[in-house]
C-alpha cells in the first residue's frame, strides 16, 4: 500500500486540564474507508480536530497527505464535517452550499452534485432550521463534499439517519474511496464497523486496536464486532 494518508505520531492533547489523548499513534491508509470507533468521550472528535488542524496540541505530530496537519496547502484538499451540523440555520440548503462553494472557488454545478450525493435535491430551497436533524446533518456532509477533497474527515455523519439513508451514505463513501478519496469516519455505533475497510478502536484516549473487521474477529474469536470490542476492553483492563 502507498504512503498513509494520515500519520499520527505520539499525539498529545490536553483539554481543560485533562489528557484527552495522552500519546496516540495511528495511521490511515490512502484510498480507504477507515472507521474511527469508540464510545462517546473516547477522544474521537479531538483526534479528528487534530487531523483537520483546528485542535491545539500539546505534543506529537500529525501529518496529512504528506504535510503537517492544518497547513494552508491542505485547506483545499481536506473536507471536514463537524459533529454538530455546522451550517447556517437561517439560510436555505442551496444558499449554504453556494456560500461554501464560493469560498472554495467551486461553481454551481458542484453544489448540485453535492446535493445529489446526499439525496437532498428536493430540499434545496428549504431553510435549514426547518429541516430534521438527519437532513441538517446531510447538508453539513454535502458541504464537506463540495470541494472534491482528497481526504474526507467525517465526525459521526450517520447519527440519527434512517437505515436506508445510512446504507446509501456508506455506499457513497465507498464510491468515493474507489475514486481514490481517503475517508475517516467516526461512529459510536459498532454495527457500522463492518462497513469499513479498516478500524481504529479508541477508548479513553488510547488506541485499543487498529485492524480490519476480519482481523478483529480472528484476534478475539468473536463474530459480532461489538462483542469483539468488549473482549478488547476486558483484555486491556
Amino acid at each position, binding site marked *: 500500500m502507498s504512503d498513509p494518508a494520515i500519520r499520527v505520531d505520539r499525539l498529545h492533547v490536553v483539554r481543560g486540564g485533562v489528557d484527552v489523548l495522552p500519546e496516540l499513534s495511528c495511521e490511515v491508509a490512502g484510498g480507504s474507508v477507515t472507521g474511527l470507533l469508540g464510545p462517546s468521550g473516547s477522544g474521537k472528535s479531538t483526534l479528528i480536530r487534530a487531523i483537520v488542524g483546528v485542535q491545539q496540541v500539546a505534543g506529537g505530530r500529525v501529518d496529512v497527505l504528506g504535510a503537517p496537519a492544518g497547513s494552508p496547502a491542505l*485547506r483545499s484538499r481536506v473536507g471536514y464535517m463537524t459533529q454538530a451540523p455546522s451550517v447556517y440555520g437561517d439560510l436555505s440548503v442551496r444558499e449554504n452550499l453556494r456560500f461554501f462553494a*464560493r469560498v472554495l472557488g467551486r461553481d454551481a454545478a458542484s453544489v448540485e452534485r453535492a446535493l445529489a450525493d446526499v439525496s437532498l435535491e428536493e430540499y434545496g430551497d428549504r431553510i435549514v432550521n426547518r429541516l430534521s436533524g438527519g437532513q441538517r446533518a446531510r447538508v453539513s456532509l454535502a458541504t464537506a463534499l463540495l470541494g472534491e477533497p482528497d481526504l474526507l474527515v467525517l465526525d459521526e455523519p450517520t447519527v440519527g439517519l434512517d437505515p436506508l439513508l445510512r446504507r446509501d451514505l456508506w455506499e457513497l463513501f465507498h464510491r468515493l474511496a474507489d475514486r481514490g478519496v481517503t475517508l475517516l469516519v467516526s461512529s459510536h455505533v459498532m454495527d457500522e464497523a463492518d462497513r469499513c475497510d479498516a478500524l481504529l478502536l479508541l477508548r479513553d484516549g488510547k488506541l485499543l486496536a487498529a485492524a480490519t473487521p476480519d482481523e478483529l474477529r480472528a484476534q478475539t474469536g468473536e463474530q459480532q464486532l461489538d462483542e469483539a470490542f468488549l473482549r478488547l476492553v476486558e483484555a486491556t483492563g
Partner: protein
Amino acid sequence: MTPRVTWAVARRVLQQLRRDPRTIALIIGVPCLLEFLLQQLFGRNSPVFQHVGAPLLGLFPFVTMFLVTSITMLRERTSGTLERLMTMPLAKVDVLAGYGIAFALLAVVQATVVSLLAFGLLGLEVAGPQWVVVALAVANAVLGSTLGLFVSAFAQTEFQAVQFMPAVVFPQFLLCGLFVARDEMATWLRWISAVFPLTYAYDALARAAADMLDARFALDVAIVCGCIVLALVLGAATLRRRTG
C-alpha cells in the same frame, strides 16, 4: 485576502439579514422613532433638537452595528461554522472584511432613511453638508461592527454579548462630549474620553454639523479610521484556527 471570498462572506451575512425582516425593520425604524420623539419632545426649532439630532443620526449606526455584529459573530463561533471556515482556504481578514462590508451596506440604508426623515420631515438643520453627516454615520457603523467582532470573542453566550453593549457603548456615549462638553469635564474624565473612539466620532459629527470641516475635523476622521483598522487587527487576533 481574496476579493471573491470576502464578497462571498458579505453576501452571506446580507442573505442572513434578509431572512430576518423584523431585525431590519428595527434597525431602520428605531432611530427614526427616536429622532421623531426627540423632535416632538423639544420642538422643531429648539436648540436641543438641533444640537442632539445630527449626532444621534451619526452615532446610532455605531450602537446598532456593534450589537448586531457581536451577536452574529458569536453565533458563528458557537455553531461550528467558524471552525469549518477555518479549515477552508480563506484568510481571517476575509471573514472580518466581509462582515464589515455587509454591515456598512446596511448602515448606508439606515443612515440614508434616518437622514431623509430628520432633514426632510423633522426639520433638522446642519450648517455643513448633509452627506458628510451620512458618510460619518457609515464610518461609525463600520467602527461599531469591527468593535463588535472583537468583543464577541469575550462572550460565551448571547446574554453576555448583549451586556457588552452597555459596558462598551454607554461610557463612550456619556463621555464623548454630547452631554457635557469635554472642556467642562473633570480632568480624569477628559483623559478617559480621550482614549474612546466615539469621542472623535462625535467631534467629527459636531464639526460637520457646524460646517467646521477644518484640520481638526480631518484628524477626527483619521482617528476613527485608525480605530477601525486597530479593531480589525484585534478582531483578527481573536480568530484562531486552532482552539482548545
